[in-house]
């Protein structure tokens, strides 16, 4: 299949269609609405289910219902809408049915704005719904990667009976880039042994997240945890750039990661031996890759479009071994490469510190500039 120019949101929608998504339920919210609009045309054309729900609460529970029938199903939203979906996410996780959610993040908290941000990291990665559950979270940095990861999201959701989230910011949703679409997969004809599709010639089945007897709930909690250990062992994905001989490492996911790539190239042009580690699965987090970079490098920099949410996961792995600095733009602002380049230069000048917290030092630098 040839590469074509696709808008991020629409590319994700078409990739989902090709991955065999049989039902889509959503609610309009900027900057993900093109995804819903695309599905509103494409799904009926293929005889598949599309419903514009009354709310994100409605949408996620339609996803829940459809997921119980064993088909591939998804929804998409943006930050405030995703907050509303958290109830359903927790139930879906607790019922152990597969579902795919796309979160095209925007500035927040609250109504915030419609500009790109990465501030849902904690909510998605560390679980915004109640209870112990572990979503798989894939963070694309380009339209092609968004396509590939959408397909992967359906596979992983099914394999691990898990909620899988494709987490991107609004700029990637709005951007156009070349992408090669995957081949069209046929819809599923065989369904798992847990699917509730009518008890024809078999015992009835029940799907629920309720375990009123605490020991039964604990057994479920342990099952979820063990399954997550499998995910951690098998599904970590990340990409490195210029890291082979690097003395300094920059880390960032999604758009922050790709903006950092431009900065890393510019720094290399200045002779600074710096590389980039861009987590693709932010959950499971690429702990070993971060650890290896920490062992190799003199200092690190975490770049995000939030107040340092992934930073905490990096610092946990670093465990105060090498100095880390932090840089962020927030509120819907995408950093420019030169801002990150300035931070890389600081690393190379030996200005990174082990004292205190990187976020606090960054805040002081911001205050000093103001």
């Amino acid at each position: 299949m040839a590469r074509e120019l696709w808008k991020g949101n629409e590319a994700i929608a078409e990739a989902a269609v090709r991955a065999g998504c049989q039902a889509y339920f959503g609610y309009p919210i900027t900057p993900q609405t093109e995804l819903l609009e695309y599905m509103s045309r494409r799904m009926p054309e293929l005889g598949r289910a599309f419903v514009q729900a009354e709310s994100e609460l409605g949408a996620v529970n339609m996803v829940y219902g459809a997921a119980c029938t064993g088909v591939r199903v998804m929804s998409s939203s943006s930050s405030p809408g995703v907050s509303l979906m958290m109830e359903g996410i927790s139930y879906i996780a607790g019922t152990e049915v597969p579902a795919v959610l796309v979160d095209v993040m925007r500035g927040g908290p609250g109504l915030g704005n419609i500009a790109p941000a990465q501030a849902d990291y904690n909510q998605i990665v560390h679980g915004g719904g109640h209870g112990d559950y572990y979503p798989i979270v894939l963070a694309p940095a380009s339209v092609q990667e968004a396509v590939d990861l959408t397909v992967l999201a359906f596979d992983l959701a099914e394999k691990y009976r898990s909620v899988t989230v494709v987490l991107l910011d609004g700029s990637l949703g709005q951007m156009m880039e070349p992408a090669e679409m995957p081949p069209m997969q046929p819809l599923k004809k065989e369904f798992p042994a847990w699917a509730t599709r009518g008890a024809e010639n078999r015992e009835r089945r029940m799907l629920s997240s309720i375990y009123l007897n605490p020991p039964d709930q604990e057994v479920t909690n342990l099952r979820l945890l063990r399954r997550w250990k499998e995910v951690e062992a098998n599904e970590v994905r990340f990409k490195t750039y210029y890291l082979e001989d690097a003395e300094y490492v920059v880390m960032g996911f999604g758009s922050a990661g790709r903006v950092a790539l431009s900065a890393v190239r510019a720094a290399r042009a200045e002779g600074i031996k710096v590389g980039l580690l861009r987590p693709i699965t932010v959950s499971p987090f690429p702990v070993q890759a971060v650890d290896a970079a920490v062992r190799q490098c003199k200092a690190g920099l975490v770049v995000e479009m939030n107040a340092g949410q992934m930073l905490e996961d990096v610092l946990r792995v670093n465990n105060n071994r090498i100095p880390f600095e932090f840089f962020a733009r927030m509120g819907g602002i995408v950093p420019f490469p030169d801002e990150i380049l300035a931070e890389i230069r600081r690393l190379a000048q030996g200005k990174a510190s082990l004292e205190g917290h990187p976020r606090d030092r960054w805040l002081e630098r911001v205050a000093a500039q103001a």
Partner: protein
Amino acid sequence: MQTDIIIAGFGGQGVLFAGQLLAYAGLGEGKEVTWIPSYGPEMRGGTANCTVIIADEEIGSPMVRNPQAVIAMNRPSLDKYEPLMRPGGLLVVNASMVDRKVKRTDLRVVEVPANEIAESLGDKRMTNMVLLGSLIANLPIIQLTSIETALKEHLPERHHRLLPQNYQALAKGAELLAA
């Protein structure tokens, strides 16, 4: 190698479509491209701009602070981007809509009476094509024929009778070279 271009103007001037054509043309030549619209509150505020990056390797930041090339389709766009451009950059100005001269002396400047040229060819809506033609002629990163191919492939079928005029608009613009 990476070239970044910002096209800016009023909504309705064909800013986003001109950018998309550039991206399609780059794609047609097997290059890496990104196209990103101005995106945020200003999206509905009357001005429109998009950033197009054409490169031969994986593209990092999709947005640029200091573009190498700018098409300024109106005065506010010129005011906004002239100071931001990289020294030696290419600035294509729609002289029909701008009532001042470019101040900087370290830029390559083309002043194109694009509205008048488009009107003389029969349709003011081709202003963006005139400016795009001039940009391509002065910034030889992609072939004009690739733009023509992209136009043919992405102009809605019902407008295909307008293709020859649009090719003419591109060619007229391409005649105007930077001093």
